[in-house]
């Protein structure tokens, strides 16, 4: 305090007093900058000028031509929109092994402007590394008037990236990769007729097509700002996440399907036949464990085969089942209380039916067969004669309950419902023929499910190909969860029919000793049906031979149904389809560890 006093006492003017010594330098500067008002005004004008530039630019950008600048900004890489492709769901077998799966893939694309100069060496490099056609690639790389050319599509991502990196390292510029998912069918032809395949733009057949919406999912997208190829942190970004497709779990057993297909091919080729199919069904659940078609195709290369070989003939092509159908007719008749397995029938050499005559497949004098003998010997006359015991409309109602004339809706595109004549068309002649499986047509799984009804103690289980449930593109919900059961014939009728079917594979009494499975009791029925030709509405002299049955007969586990179209070996159902049935059934029993029970086959008399 004492120090301040002298200053107070100096007696300067107030203005002079304000001028403190420490501020001397500042005051000098202030004088250089002019007065405060002038400075304020200058600053204001300066700011106004700058702001007006900003304003003018704003009006130019937003008011005059906003789109042009927006596209310009997007084009120079300000923001980038990338697709987030949804992963397509896999198609799996019952053990989760993939029948079709999606692999991350890339397309290799080129900018011909950059590649034209070295088109030849680049094409040579790519043709060796990517296995693409040299000349096509050369053409693509040396195009003019374009800056985009496809080199290869659906290349596994690791390979594509490796090859493009190697090309860049060699100094070849202008190659790039884009997202292009690969659909892989690791098993080639196994279940190909069911699974279908994917074309360039979408599914073209099979389950891929039927369940496309569920498998495909929904692509997402992401928009963000980039600088020098890197995402700008905290930059503007929007993300629409992709919704991946759901996997489709089928009831197919890959290994059993494989074996069934190979046995079927051997059978069809061995009989010089046109085509064939085989169905393996789980008795209790109605799940289709294998559904083999021949001819078939390689799903990884569908173009190599004829289009007609790419769908499932078993499901899409109706045929007359022939004598296998006798199982349905006669078990219905037993259920109706008209006959038993031991009912004695007189079978004449031929049976008049309307203006025609029914024959048996073998000529014979008048025979004395039991109902079991009719099945074992597959007598058309015996069956037709017995079926005349039905009340009017009864047989049709039974066959409807067995599932004939209705689609199985297991999820196969273009499934045929078969053809069960309507009540109005039904008459005695028709019934005679329908009784032994002519004049009625079915699809393969439909018929297998009908035979399975007998195996299942008379209860029809609707077959399924999809585990759980899945929605088809047409909105139908299918799968094991939707499976239904309904009783068709009594347990007793089913048991009697099983006994009769056991006689079919007996070497002395039956028509199909080759269908036996060593160690197990087998029940089955042969079928040899005349085929309707493609050109006329008549039987054209060719045949459908088949064998359907189940095992072990004392406690059935599987139903197997093998059908061969137009065999040229003249062996009939027992000789052609029987051995295939035996092999497939034997494999299935072994694979699922079904122990032989030691039971003995039925010995009910076939003659009297």
């Amino acid at each position: 305090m004492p120090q301040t006093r002298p200053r107070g006492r100096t007696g300067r003017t107030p203005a002079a007093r304000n001028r403190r010594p420490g501020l001397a330098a500042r005051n000098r500067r202030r004088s250089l900058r002019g007065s405060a008002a002038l400075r304020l005004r200058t600053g204001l004008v300066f700011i106004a000028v700058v702001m007006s530039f900003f304003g003018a630019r704003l009006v130019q950008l937003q008011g005059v031509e906003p789109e042009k600048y927006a596209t310009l900004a997007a084009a120079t890489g300000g923001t980038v929109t990338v697709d987030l492709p949804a992963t397509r769901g896999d198609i799996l077998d019952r053990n989760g092994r993939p029948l079709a799966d999606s692999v991350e893939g890339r397309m290799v694309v080129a900018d011909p402007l950059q590649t034209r100069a070295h088109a030849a060496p680049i094409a040579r490099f790519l043709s060796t590394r990517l296995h693409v056609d040299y000349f096509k690639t050369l053409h693509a790389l040396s195009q003019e008037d374009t800056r985009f050319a496809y080199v290869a599509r659906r290349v596994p991502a690791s390979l594509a990236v490796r090859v493009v990196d190697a090309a860049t390292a060699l100094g070849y510029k202008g190659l790039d990769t884009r997202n292009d998912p690969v659909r892989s069918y690791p098993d080639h032809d196994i279940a190909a007729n069911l699974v279908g395949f994917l074309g360039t733009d979408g599914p073209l057949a099979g389950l891929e097509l039927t369940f496309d919406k569920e498998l495909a999912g929904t692509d997402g997208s992401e928009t963000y700002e980039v600088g020098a190829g890197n995402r700008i942190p905290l930059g503007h970004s929007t993300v629409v996440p992709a919704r991946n497709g759901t996997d489709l779990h089928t009831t197919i057993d890959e290994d059993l399907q494989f074996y069934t297909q190979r046995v079927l091919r051997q059978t069809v080729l061995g009989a010089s036949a046109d085509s064939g199919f085989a169905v393996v069904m789980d008795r209790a659940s109605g799940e289709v464990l294998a559904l083999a078609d021949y001819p078939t195709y390689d799903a990884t290369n569908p173009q190599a085969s004829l289009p007609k070989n790419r769908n499932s003939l078993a499901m899409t092509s109706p045929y007359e089942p022939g004598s296998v159908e006798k199982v349905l007719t006669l078990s219905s008749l037993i259920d109706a209380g008209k006959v038993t397995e031991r009912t004695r029938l007189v079978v004449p050499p031929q049976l008049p039916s309307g203006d025609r005559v029914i024959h048996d497949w073998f000529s014979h004098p008048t025979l004395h067969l039991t109902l079991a003998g009719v099945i074992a010997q597959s007598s058309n006359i015996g069956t037709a004669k017995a079926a005349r015991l039905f009340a009017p409309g009864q047989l049709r109602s039974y066959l409807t309950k067995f599932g004939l004339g209705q689609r199985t809706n297991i999820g196969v595109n273009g499934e045929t419902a078969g053809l069960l004549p309507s009540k109005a068309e039904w008459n005695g002649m028709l019934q005679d023929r329908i009784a032994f499986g002519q004049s009625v047509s079915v699809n393969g799984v439909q018929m297998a499910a009908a035979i399975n009804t007998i195996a299942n103690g008379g209860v029809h289980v609707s077959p399924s190909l999809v585990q759980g449930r899945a929605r088809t593109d047409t909105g139908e919900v299918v799968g094991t969860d939707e499976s239904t059961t309904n009783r068709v014939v009594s347990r007793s009728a089913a048991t009697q029919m099983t006994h009769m079917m056991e006689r079919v594979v007996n070497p002395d009494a039956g028509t199909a000793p080759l269908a036996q499975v060593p160690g197990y009791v087998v029940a089955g029925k042969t079928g040899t049906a005349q085929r309707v030709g493609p050109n006329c509405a008549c039987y054209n002299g060719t045949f459908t031979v088949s064998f359907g049955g189940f095992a072990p007969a004392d406690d059935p586990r599987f139903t197997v149904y093998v059908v061969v179209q137009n065999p040229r070996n003249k062996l009939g159902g027992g000789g052609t389809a029987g051995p295939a049935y035996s092999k497939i059934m034997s494999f299935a029993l072994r694979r699922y560890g079904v122990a032989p029970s030691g039971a003995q086959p039925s010995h009910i008399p076939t003659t009297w």
Partner: protein
Amino acid sequence: MSSTAPALRARVPRLAGAALERARLTVVPKRKRRHSSPVPFLVVVSMLAVGGIVGLLLFNTSMQQASFAATDLQHQADTLEAKKQSLQMDLDRLRDPQSIALKAQRMGMVLPTSPAVLDLRTGKVLGDPSQATGLERLRLLPPPPAKPAALDPPAHVTVVHESAATHAAERGAHNSPGNTTRGSQQGGQDRGRQDPTRHTDHTGNTGTTR
């Protein structure tokens, strides 16, 4: 004044002398102002400013760095994912039942003719175990593609060796299941097993030889 003041002081009792002393007006002492140089202030301010800018810069750089690293790691993840998937593809290819079956056949494995089951509880063998035979060998490969008509074996070959060829085929079917000369050895065996008297043409291009 100078005379009265001491008088007053004398008269007034020195009651609140101290308070009185305090209440006396004096000139407010001037607040001490240190006119030190502005340098410290400027240093602090500029340090703040520079520190802020540098900090921001560093933060930004580290964000960029993180972005680079993220891009790199994303790329690495993509590469590894692609690698995993191609390995998965390899695995699927190796697990294909067809390739397994082919390898098994090449090793001489055959399918059992008659399976037998050993019940571990009773120790009994169920079923009828019998030795597997090569006859059960499965034809695994598809038939060769049909040849164009020009390359089909001309009919005269069959005509010239008709009887001999038939005998040879029958002998092959009966006695030498491993005969591979016709390119369809499994077919030949199977023919032999199913029906030795038949000799169906498996190549399918001449169904008329029977």
